């Protein structure tokens, strides 16, 4: 191929037509979900939104080092599943895992402190943003090299199957993960062993800086692959917590009945770039604006008002969450920087790092 003939604008993805969101499916407001559950989902979305906004502010203040991948705009997926899961179910997430960690009930302060690299962080400062884990909350880890954790989630599901506990494992991953080998190994394995696992693709339309449809053989990178593993193709509006809650409840029930895995593709959009380093300039004009109009949280606010929840209650929740995020920030900032004893702690089960006598 001649390089002279090459027009770099062909790879300027901002020149492509925008991918616009679908309209809100108002019928999801009529789903049989208790109002109190909906209010909880509203509150959780507020927590995830306000936490991530604060995390972003703390980057700008240079208090958060390294990288970070925010879920701003994608809160409804973590919320719908977070509320549908049993407390003893297992979550496996990617580096974009703040929301999934908080959705399982991990405390805000230690999670924020982890982003700041403090000793009072949930991982004592040793994992950072991309590895959030809280085993006591069923959050079995955030895995920063995509693909492996689908296979690992299978193992947790296998363990639950052997122990007969009717627990399920849920693995969240981005659209980019659907093109790595471990995705396909995990799906086949789970299907063959009838594992109680739910694979949730958060399709935010961009693998990192490249549109997912530019690098995938099929339009729906997860759902269109499902039939290859004998699974139903399921696409859900990832910006509607009720829609996600419904599909989560169904797939978890299927897992608990011993009917095997599910693969769900939730269509959503990240409001920001891939990571803190990315301004997201590869996105066509009008696309971000269109998705901001389909922001899951104002939509849900309106739905709850229509369902008769008073505005005063919703604004009280917002205020209360703002206070919790403020407290978490203060907790994190007050944490000490970890000392040398932590550098050598926990390589091995004996708590140490010795490799010789």
């Amino acid at each position, binding site marked *: 191929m001649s390089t002279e003939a090459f027009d770099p604008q062909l790879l300027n993805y901002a020149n492509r037509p925008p991918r616009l969101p679908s309209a809100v499916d108002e019928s999801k407001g009529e789903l049989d979900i208790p109002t109190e559950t909906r209010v909880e989902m509203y509150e959780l979305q507020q927590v995830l939104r306000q936490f991530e906004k604060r995390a972003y502010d703390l980057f700008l203040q240079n208090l958060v080092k390294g990288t970070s991948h925010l879920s701003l705009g994608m809160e409804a997926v973590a919320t719908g599943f977070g509320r549908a899961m049993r407390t003893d179910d*297992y979550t*496996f997430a990617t580096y974009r895992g703040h929301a999934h960690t908080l959705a399982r009930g991990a405390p805000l302060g230690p999670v924020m402190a982890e982003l700041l690299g403090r000793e009072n*962080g*949930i*991982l*004592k*400062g*040793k*994992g950072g943003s991309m*590895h959030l*884990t*809280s*085993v*006591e909350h069923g959050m*079995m*880890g955030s*895995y920063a*090299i995509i*693909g*492996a*954790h*689908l*296979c*690992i*989630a*299978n*193992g*947790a*599901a*296998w*363990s*639950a199957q*052997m*122990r007969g506990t009717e627990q399920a*494992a849920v693995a969240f991953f981005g659209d980019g993960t659907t093109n790595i*080998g*471990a995705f396909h*190994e*995990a799906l*086949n*394995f789970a299907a*063959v062993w009838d594992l109680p696992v739910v694979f949730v693709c958060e399709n935010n339309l961009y693998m990192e800086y490249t549109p997912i449809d530019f690098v995938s053989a099929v339009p729906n990178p997860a759902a269109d692959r499902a039939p290859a593993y004998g699974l139903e193709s399921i696409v859900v509006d990832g910006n509607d917590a009720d829609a996600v809650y419904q599909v989560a409840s169904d797939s978890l029930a299927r897992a608990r009945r011993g009917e095997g895995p599910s693969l769900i593709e939730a269509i959503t959009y990240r409001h920001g770039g891939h990571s803190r380093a990315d301004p997201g300039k590869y996105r066509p004009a009008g696309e971000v604006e269109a998705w901001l109009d389909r922001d899951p949280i104002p939509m849900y606010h309106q739905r709850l008002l229509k369902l008769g929840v008073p505005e005063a209650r919703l604004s009280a929740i917002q205020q209360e969450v703002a206070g919790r995020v403020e407290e978490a920030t203060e907790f994190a900032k007050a944490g000490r920087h970890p000392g040398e004893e932590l550098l050598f*702690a*926990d*390589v*091995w*089960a004996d*708590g140490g*790092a*010795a*490799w*010789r*006598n």
Partner: protein
Amino acid sequence: MAELSYREAVARGIAQEMRRDPSLVMLGEDIAGAGGVFKTTVGLLEEFGPLRVRDTPISEQAILGAAMGAAMTGIPVIAEIMFSDFLAVCWDIVANEMAKSRYMSGGQVSVPVVIRTHNGGGSRFGAQHSQSVENWCMMIPGLKVVAPSNSTDVVGLMAASIRDPDPVVFFEHKSLLATKTEVPDGELVDTLGRANVVRAGTDCTIAALALMVPRALEAAERLATQGISAEVIDVRSLVPLDTRTLLGSVGKTGHLYTVEENPRLCGWGAEIASIVADEAFWDLDGPVVRITTPHIPLPAAEALEDMAIPSVDRIVETVAATLT
């Protein structure tokens, strides 16, 4: 006491532990119905049933991922990777996930997995099915690495590896599978991180691993006829590493040879040479000499493979020529 082949010892060690711990399970390609392509798992399906001994697809990432996920949720697992060369296919899960999860999670996650894998040359399989890759694992913090040389050690170190709460990579040498040694009756449980002096000597120390141990022993016999008394150490466990035994022997003999099947660069012997240089320099009466496979991919042809991997002749000649 009964004579047992190395391959039978693998199954005996696993069976001993599966009887002790009813939660222990194993998975891998062709391990159940077929008893393993190297016949190292014969009889386990029959004794423990298809829920505890499971055949998998050819999906190394899925195998080790399942092992890890089960282990971190309370079920200890033995996973087989048929050839150690295939660790490259699932290296992310070994090196990035299993090895690091405890540390990265601030101690929350425990991964009691044993990865059993068939390692080493001598089978004329060529460059992708013959490698000695224990040094790949040795350089990753968070992995324990074991490579036994005889049937008794296979049983005892298998038990120790299974009982260890950290991930252990257990290398079974393909060219030792048919070798037989007397193995004590009853439960055997060894200790990780302990080297054995398998022949006492006074003039030099020869440190060897797995298939190189019987070769070093034979070389020592021949060196004895030339009036050279060689002490042979079976290193057995690379992580943890029994430096005390190695340094003690070098302190006595003043000379160290390592016999390594891995290609030259970054072999385990280089680490031992470095430790000896740092900590026993004044005990040495001559340079540390590494006897290794050259830094080449292993060839398939019998004549070429035999030239590449350290032989008894090469050990004898090297020691005789360099011992001052």
